[in-house]
């Protein structure tokens, strides 16, 4: 009964979303205020029905109702209750329902938080969100309903959740990532609404900015969590694989980053308008492309749950309609857009433009590397794969350039900056960065090569140019250093996010160069030395978990000859499907991780053991976290609310 209610709620969602997609849209076009006012209640209703449907599925999981095919395929009575709940989004159908839930949550948030928005704009924004909801609701209903029953032969026991996904990382990673992906639909809806109404102005940029920032922050967090999860769960100790699905999340992030910056210029200076609209369209289109890549099964990946040509076709059609429709609208409307001011070659605008170009080019290279194998395969030219060296070869120099221009860009003035002033501003941070990176290099055990050194230099460059900017602001005010505490929240957000970039760069540079890694055959008593750490293998213990049996290795770690800690890497056998899983043991630290994973048994008490020493690996996620917090700070700047209130008073 409960699953059927969930299904009905979904059908109602689809019907209501059609209403939301049409009535307010028509109302806004013909100027019917009553029709426009339908938008808000419909948005609330949509959220209510999807939430209800989602709860129905959650209930079926908690009750282990194996007559529901999706539950039977992804759950098991031996599963602890929290994994049963997170199993709701452990498969294809449920994760789409989560996607829909998040989409309607964003719609609801826009409906509730936009009291200050003109009615016609709000109506159009919500209508666009409604149309997107229609697409996804129909997709779920026609190709991937999570509520399908297996009747009358109900299985006694479920097939269990994929053990890789029985983990805290899975509980949080997909919702965060989807918050980001789907969050760009708001920026997209605002862009479309602005195009339709012909009001591409500073007000539009100001409305979109907080939404875009917050979506970007969630996407950043989602990607960082995914990287962290892959690091500790896959047993390889890698943190980025250039897996097509990772790329699928990186592409909207790159364009989203460009969008965040471009929106800032559009709001402050009234330029780049049509470019900003284009970025908003691309950011959301790439989110849809990511969904297509992951869900259609065209990719070989950890994430590709299921391949069903119908599903792929449906998403491809959605993608074509979204991109085609919005680009057509763009082609018709954007030519009328005029910039409100001009800017010189040496100005902050120019450097923002360079930032945008670099980010877009990076995104294009990732897109090429991701789609090229698919293209070649579709043309029957053979099966190929594009290796990480391709991505590294392109991404590292582009990233370096990006960080270099970041440092200059934040010191420049809007409109025009004299060359002499630029030199005066940047020589000191430059020299300081050189000295600081020289000292950092001297502290390292050996010369790390040119790119790693450049990475350190650039990280310091970001830090010192940011310091310079802070100092400028302090000097421009009579109160001196108290001015540092009086900057806007958005400014601190920007500083924190840029600091996150510096931390991330340091992490990437050092972990790529100084990681040590060894695969060993170890018998009890065998030892392995890494720097000051010595690993002693003490054999294997048998341990039983709720739904698995485990061989737990005992590894004693000595630090400079003194006992330091014990680590327990596991090899787990999940009984429901007979899956074998590696659980790595990690001793985390700010400056280094010790990482031990168990391979297979080699007989005679000997085991294959992978031992790794990972310096500065935590900095990767610390950087991601700083960017996330920075994005949230910027999005919640009280300025947006105050400004909106002022506009309303003026209107």
């Amino acid at each position: 009964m409960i699953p059927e209610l969930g299904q009905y709620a979904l059908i109602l969602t689809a019907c209501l979303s059609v209403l939301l997609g049409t009535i307010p849209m028509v109302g806004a076009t013909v100027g019917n205020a009553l029709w426009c006012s339908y938008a808000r209640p419909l948005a609330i209703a949509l959220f209510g029905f999807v939430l209800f449907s989602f709860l129905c599925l959650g209930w079926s999981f908690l009750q282990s109702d194996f007559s529901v095919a999706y539950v039977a395929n992804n759950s098991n009575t031996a599963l602890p209750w929290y994994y049963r709940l997170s199993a709701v989004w452990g498969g294809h159908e449920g994760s789409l329902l989560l996607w829909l839930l998040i989409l309607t949550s964003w719609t609801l948030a826009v409906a509730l938080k936009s009291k200050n928005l003109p009615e016609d704009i709000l109506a159009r924004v919500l209508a666009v969100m409604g149309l997107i909801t229609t697409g996804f609701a129909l997709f779920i209903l026609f190709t991937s309903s999570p509520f399908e029953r297996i009747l009358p032969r109900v299985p006694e026991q479920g097939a269990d959740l994929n053990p890789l996904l029985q983990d805290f990382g899975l509980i949080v990673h997909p919702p965060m990532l989807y918050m980001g992906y789907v969050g760009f639909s708001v920026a997209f809806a605002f862009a479309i609404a602005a195009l339709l109404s012909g009001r591409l102005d500073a007000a539009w940029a100001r409305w979109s900015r907080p939404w875009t920032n917050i979506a970007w922050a969630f996407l950043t967090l989602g990607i960082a969590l995914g990287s962290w999860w892959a690091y500790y769960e896959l047993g390889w100790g890698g943190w980025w694989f250039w897996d097509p699905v990772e790329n699928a999340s990186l592409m909207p992030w790159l364009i989203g980053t460009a969008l965040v910056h471009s929106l800032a210029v559009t709001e402050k200076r009234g330029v780049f308008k049509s470019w900003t609209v284009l970025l908003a369209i691309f950011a959301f289109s790439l989110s849809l492309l990511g969904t297509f890549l992951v869900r259609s099964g065209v990719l070989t990946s950890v994430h590709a749950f299921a391949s069903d040509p119908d599903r792929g076709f449906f998403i491809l059609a959605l993608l074509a309609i979204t991109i085609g429709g919005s680009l057509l609208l763009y082609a018709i409307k954007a030519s009328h857009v005029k910039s409100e001011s001009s800017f010189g070659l040496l100005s902050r605008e120019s450097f923002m433009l360079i930032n945008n170009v670099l980010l877009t080019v990076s995104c294009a290279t990732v897109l090429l590397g991701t789609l090229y194998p698919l293209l070649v395969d579709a043309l029957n030219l053979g099966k190929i794969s594009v290796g990480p060296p391709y991505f590294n070869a392109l991404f590292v120099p582009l990233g370096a350039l990006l960080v270099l221009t970041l440092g200059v860009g934040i010191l420049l003035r809007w409109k025009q900056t004299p060359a002499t002033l630029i030199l005066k501003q940047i020589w000191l941070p430059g020299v300081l960065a050189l000295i600081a990176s020289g000292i950092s290099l001297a502290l390292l055990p050996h010369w790390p090569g040119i790119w790693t050194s450049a990475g350190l230099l650039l990280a310091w460059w970001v830090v010192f140019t940011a310091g310079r900017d802070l100092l400028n602001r302090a000097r421009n005010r009579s109160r001196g250093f108290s001015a540092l505490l009086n900057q806007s929240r958005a400014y601190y957000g920007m500083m924190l996010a840029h600091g996150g970039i510096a931390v991330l760069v340091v992490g990437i540079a050092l972990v790529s160069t100084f990681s040590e890694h060894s695969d060993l055959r170890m018998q009890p008593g065998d030892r392995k030395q890494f720097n000051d750490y010595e690993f002693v293998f003490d054999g294997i213990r048998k341990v039983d978990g709720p739904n698995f049996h485990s061989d737990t290795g005992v590894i004693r770690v000595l630090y400079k000859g003194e006992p330091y800690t014990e680590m327990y890497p596991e090899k787990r056998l999940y009984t429901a499907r007979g899956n074998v899983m590696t659980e790595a043991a990690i001793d985390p630290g700010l400056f280094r991780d010790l990482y031990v994973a168990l391979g297979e048994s080699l007989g005679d008490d000997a085991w294959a053991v992978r031992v790794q020493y990972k310096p500065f690996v935590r900095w990767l996620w610390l950087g991601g976290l700083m960017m996330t917090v920075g994005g949230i700070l910027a999005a919640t700047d009280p300025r947006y609310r105050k400004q909106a209130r002022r506009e309303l008073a003026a209107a």
Partner: protein
Amino acid sequence: MNPKRKQRLLIVLFIVAGVGVAVGLTLFALNQNINLFYSPSQIAAGEAPTETRIRAGGMVVDGSVQRANDSLEVGFDITDYEHTVHVRYTGILPDLFREGQGIVAQGELDKSGVLQAVEVLAKHDENYMPPEVAEALEKAGKMPKPTGQEFNK
């Protein structure tokens, strides 16, 4: 040309140059890093280049896995049920590696026709078969009939 146009032209030229360099570098890097897939039959027919990074896939032959006693070296055969290729690998095999399972190995063919693998991939679902392997098996007409559950579904 008035200064504004000149400036615009500069910006456009800058973008075009940037895109040109990026495209050149990209295609160069792409060419350097493409790994072609070969089935055991293709390798047996001599279609695969030696001493170039390639990928090969097939089913691991039952009873073919042999380990060294004192190291992590392991050797096994992969097959598309027409021909087999011997693979040698040093390191830890993935969790889902087992006999009778479809795998993909990445490495170089040496002169004696042995694949010296640097990476062995087996996917995280026991019903899953790498699409390359599935296609190679279908070509050889040896796709095993799925039992109970369908492959890739």
